[in-house]
């Protein structure tokens, strides 16, 4: 885990370029050398795929690029390619991810290490193109690994790491690298672009387990009756348990090669001695870090734990990191209608059987792209402080506009 004021260490600031987030991701994909790219356009993912097709058109990326008829087909194409031994890539969001839902289960069940960026966006109805995380959090049970990034540099870095994790012979599980739509896809930030040669060293060629080959015929996708289905699921479950270690390992290897560390399963910011700890995923971390800096200068002991790997859920790492807090506030950009929200319920469940008895309150914020401000963070910290004397409200919609209800 990284420590200190800022987890990022740029070794060569002279090599930094100001680029659009989508461009940085496309650059990362180029460095990963996929054989087949197949994606269907949907705001705000469009710039990623547009950049990729330009790279292919200019001969900078040697990939087969398919313009498909739907997101369902987009991911299905990659199943066929991956079964032939291809390294593959796709990207989607929101409605597109929802449309692929059936295929998501199929990919993870067939143990194909497909990598996909999800440019997190709200799901309709009502139709909304702005950022929140309902799409990928809603898909947390489909068997894919999920990593949530906090800024553009990490979006790029995590995409490269994702292939290494997914393709590992013991893991063989597809992975979503989730980045907040518009906020990280359309923002221009200074980043250190990945070096192609270094990336090649870090991520060697893909070695598939078995492929469609007339010389060695195999059957993919047989049906499993009650006597064997459970064991298939168990193997996937086991692989995600192994991924807990692999994600940490790959983050360390990445730091050794590229000099940057955004955390493995989790990351922390001023959390070691914090009384109130905020827990969250994604780009709101930038705002929270600024808020924490301000509050620390006023003498408040506030900290942040970033959940980077949402699946597998890092139970032990979170217990260790949060055990000394006196109050925990979870902020997330999703809602589980009927029962609070994803991250807060997963977190409370992770603590229930441990000896940790710290008040945990949850906030759903930023739905449909509503801004989360430093003022909002301060408000949440105040509520967390108050919760130490007894929880008044376990779960809230932050900034609910009562006047329009």
């Amino acid at each position: 885990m990284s420590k200190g004021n800022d987890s990022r260490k740029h070794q060569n600031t002279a090599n930094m370029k100001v680029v659009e987030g989508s461009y940085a991701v496309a650059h990362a994909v180029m460095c990963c050398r996929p054989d087949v790219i197949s994606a269907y356009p949907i705001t705000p993912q469009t710039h990623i795929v547009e950049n990729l097709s330009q790279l292919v058109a200019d001969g900078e990326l040697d990939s087969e690029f398919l313009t498909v008829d739907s997101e369902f087909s987009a991911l299905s194409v990659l199943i066929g390619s991956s079964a032939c031994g291809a390294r593959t890539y796709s990207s989607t969001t929101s409605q597109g991810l929802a449309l692929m839902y059936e295929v998501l289960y199929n990919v993870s069940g067939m143990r194909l290490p497909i990598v996909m960026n999800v440019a997190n966006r709200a799901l309709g109805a009502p139709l909304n193109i702005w950022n929140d995380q309902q799409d990928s959090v809603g898909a947390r049970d489909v068997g894919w690994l999920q990593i949530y990034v906090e800024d553009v540099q990490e979006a790029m870095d995590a995409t490269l790491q994702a292939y290494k994790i997914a393709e590992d012979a013991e893991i063989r599980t597809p992975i979503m690298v989730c980045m907040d739509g518009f906020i990280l896809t359309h923002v221009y930030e200074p980043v250190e672009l990945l070096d192609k040669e270094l990336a090649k060293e870090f991520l060697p060629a893909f070695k598939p387990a078995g492929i469609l080959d007339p010389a060695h015929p195999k059957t993919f996708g047989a049906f499993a009756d009650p006597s064997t289905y459970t064991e298939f699921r168990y193997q996937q479950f086991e692989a995600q348990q192994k991924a807990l270690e692999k994600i940490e390992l790959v983050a360390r290897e990445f730091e050794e090669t590229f000099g940057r560390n955004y955390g493995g399963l989790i990351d922390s910011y001023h959390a070691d001695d914090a009384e109130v700890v905020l827990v969250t995923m994604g780009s709101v971390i930038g705002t929270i870090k600024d808020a924490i800096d301000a509050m620390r200068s006023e003498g408040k002991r506030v900290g942040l734990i970033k959940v980077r790997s949402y699946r597998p859920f890092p139970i032990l790492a979170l217990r260790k990191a949060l055990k000394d807090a006196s109050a925990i506030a979870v902020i997330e950009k999703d809602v589980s209608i009927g029962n609070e929200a994803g991250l807060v319920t997963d977190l409370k469940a992770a603590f229930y059987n441990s000896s940790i008895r710290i008040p945990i309150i949850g906030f759903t914020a930023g739905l449909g792209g509503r801004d989360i401000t430093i003022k909002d963070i301060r408000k949440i910290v105040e509520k967390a402080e108050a919760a130490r004397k007894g929880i008044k409200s376990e779960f809230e919609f932050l900034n609910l506009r009562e006047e329009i209800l």
Partner: protein
Amino acid sequence: MEIKAGSLVDPCSTRKTLTGAWRTFVPVVDQEKCIKCSLCEIYCPEGCIHQEEGLFVPDLDYCKGCSVCAHECPRMCITMVLEEK
């Protein structure tokens, strides 16, 4: 039986299951009348009629007794007989 990652299955492995146990009627070929046209082999859904030493013989391990061969034989030299077990 081992579950390999992604459930890859070996080819032609349904041969383990002897579907001959399904049948009620068994085809009997009158080899004298047979003109070796091979239509029985072509139409058989199981692919279990083959020419062995010049004679077309149904593989009773797999024959389900569907009687397509008997119906299609142009010389009507296949009869379906109730199988005694």
